[in-house]
């Protein structure tokens, strides 16, 4: 009897599962109908406005006797490159890529041009419909190419602003281990503060950068995607790490928490490296000693942020573990600097800044959860509140240096 009813139910279930495809098939039909009728439905209302026919100028680079302009078609309709101007003069050019760009297709315009070092310069690309898109470059400087020197240079910049300060900050670990519990809680709160600062900073950067992207590829959605991706990945990771160390899903602590903080900071430093590399390559940034020193001071607090949860363990941490933490948190700056220095990176930068924000937010949550349960006096103790605010203040103050 029961076997019979089970057998009778199964085909019904299968049928209803098949039914799931019906809306999809109908959708394909409806799309074909709407798209294939020739006169678009919108014509009933009014004719469409003409396309903007503006190019997205993605990257302008300068080589001796040559300007290279990377353009993308950000719109639905095709876009044709007709003439190219430099400082309001029509110039001869060659194309590396198609002259007529489909949606989101790109081409590089190569202009032989005797540009003047350090002078502002404006390049323009005019479509076949006569619409001119211009990009003003504040100062023309040669874009470094891929060479031994520039690879080493960007690598060193990444090392100096990423790895070195984090490693130095980690050296506070022995001192922190001797600290009274309420003061350790204060330093943990400071970690939460500085991570909150980084999260907000990264999110703001991601939103600013996405606004400059062609609208078709950008959008705040990309930011949310990057944010959610890293936030949820780290949630999953912290869950695993927490189960591994304590056997139960308690709050993450000790070295495991320090690792998570390092990952969050590492993602942020990747974005930071990307931004430094690309701004420097494109001549938007004067990367002097002062700037690098500023970044070092700014980032040394990140090392402190990793050291604080590690100190809570109370037992000695192997030097190699510390080195790994420093690399996880700092080395992404090197990768970022290379990527930003040598490649177009605008979409990547948005995704990574968003990911950095998501990671930092998740780690803040972990740290706060830890402090709430373990710190003497919990979240409302003056040490914790003061530590959090101090974290924000320190990041702000050292941020003024860069």
């Amino acid at each position, binding site marked *: 009897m029961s076997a019979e009813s089970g057998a009778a139910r199964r085909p019904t279930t299968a049928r209803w599962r098949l039914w799931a495809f019906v809306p999809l098939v109908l959708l394909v039909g409806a799309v074909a109908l709407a798209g294939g009728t020739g006169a678009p439905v919108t014509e009933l209302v009014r004719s469409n406005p003409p396309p903007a026919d503006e190019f997205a100028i993605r990257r302008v680079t300068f080589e001796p006797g040559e300007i290279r302009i990377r353009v993308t078609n950000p719109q639905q309709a095709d876009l044709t490159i007709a*003439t190219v101007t430099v400082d*309001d003069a029509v110039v001869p050019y060659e194309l590396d890529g198609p002259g007529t760009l489909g949606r989101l297709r790109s081409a590089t315009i190569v202009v032989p*041009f005797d540009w003047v070092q350090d002078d502002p310069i404006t390049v323009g690309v005019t479509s076949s419909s006569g619409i001119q898109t211009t990009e003003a470059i504040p100062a023309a400087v040669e874009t470094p190419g891929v060479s031994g020197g520039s690879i080493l240079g960007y690598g060193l910049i990444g090392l100096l602003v990423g790895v070195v300060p984090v490693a130095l900050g980690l050296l506070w670990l022995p001192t922190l281990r001797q600290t009274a519990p309420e003061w350790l809680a204060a330093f943990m709160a400071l970690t939460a503060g500085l991570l909150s600062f980084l999260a907000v900073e990264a999110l703001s950067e991601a939103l600013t950068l996405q606004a400059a992207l062609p609208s078709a590829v950008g959008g705040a959605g990309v930011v949310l995607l990057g944010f959610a991706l890293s936030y949820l990945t780290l949630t999953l990771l912290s869950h695993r790490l927490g189960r591994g160390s304590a056997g139960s899903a308690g709050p993450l602590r000790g070295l495991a928490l320090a690792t998570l903080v390092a990952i969050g900071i590492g993602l942020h430093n990747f974005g930071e490296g990307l931004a430094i590399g690309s701004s420097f390559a494109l001549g938007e940034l004067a990367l002097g000693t002062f700037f690098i020193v500023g970044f070092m001071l700014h980032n040394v607090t990140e090392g402190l942020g990793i050291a604080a949860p590690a100190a809570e363990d109370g037992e000695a941490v192997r030097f190699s573990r510390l080195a790994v933490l420093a690399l996880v948190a700092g080395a992404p700056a090197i990768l970022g600097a290379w990527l930003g220095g040598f490649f177009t990176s605008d979409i990547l930068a948005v995704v990574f800044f968003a990911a950095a924000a998501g990671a930092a937010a998740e780690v803040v949550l972990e740290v706060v959860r830890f402090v709430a349960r373990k710190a003497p006096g919990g979240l409302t103790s003056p040490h914790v509140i003061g530590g959090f605010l101090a974290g924000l203040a320190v990041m702000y103050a050292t941020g003024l240096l860069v």
Partner: protein
Amino acid sequence: MAGVPLIRFAAGAEGGVERFAVHDQAALGHASMIGDQVPAPGAPGALDSLLLPTPPLPHEPGRVREYRLQAIDREIEVAQGVHFAAWTYNGTVPGPVIRATEDDLLRVRFVNGGAHPHTIHFHGIHPANMDGVFEVVDSGDEFTYEFPARPYGMHLYHCHTTPLKKHIHKGLYGAFIIDPPEPRKPAKELVMVMNGFDTDGDGENNFYSVNGKAFYYAKYPIEVRRSETVRIYLANLTEFDLINSFHLHGEFFRYYPTGSTDFFEYTDTVMLTQGQRGIIEIDFHHTGKFMFHAHQSEFTELGWMGFFDVVD
């Protein structure tokens, strides 16, 4: 800095001289480009109907000169690959050259085939009701302008419907020549209407030209003979920019403001405001390729340049 890296443009070139020539061309861009290297729209001879006026007729008071002008909305190529939604008289920008001898009876039938109301406003002396200001011709309508041609000189005509800036810069203008009763001495006659095109509608010209196509006479130099006087009927119909100018290389010319016959300036550069015009007469001393262009460098590099190829 300029010299060294550009040598790669000379790939395949052998010997220092050739290498230098290739380098020059790449580095200097349009300023040193002539002939086939120049990106310019239009086929050879495409602008001849605008450049070469019909010959003048002898003085014969009361003779009727009939023209038919039709307003046509049309997309034209104003620079290599750049299309502009123009309003034209008879399909070209500038419109056709209208020519009469003083005291001819000019009869211009205007048919408005465009989508907007238009008129023709002639410069010169005529009755108020032939002025093309109040007699607005609606789309599909027509109007015949009729008046005696005077005074002799170099004039122009354009649409006078408001908004003026829009109706003029879209392309509704042309040269209007009235020959003196006493004929000017024989010459190779050319008409040059200086203009600009605001292709993206921001109130600034994106391209400049004479007779409507940027860099056209750099691609196709105008061939003239040294033994022959070159007479240019020059008019400025540039919108947005207050002035335009004409500068000739390697030679001086006589400039007759508004086409006077008894007054000229001997110079190599003249400046004309919007609507100003005159006649240039050149007697070339040398053969060779001589550049002419606006002396506003910006206009030059945005299309208003060309060459005379002076031959024996």
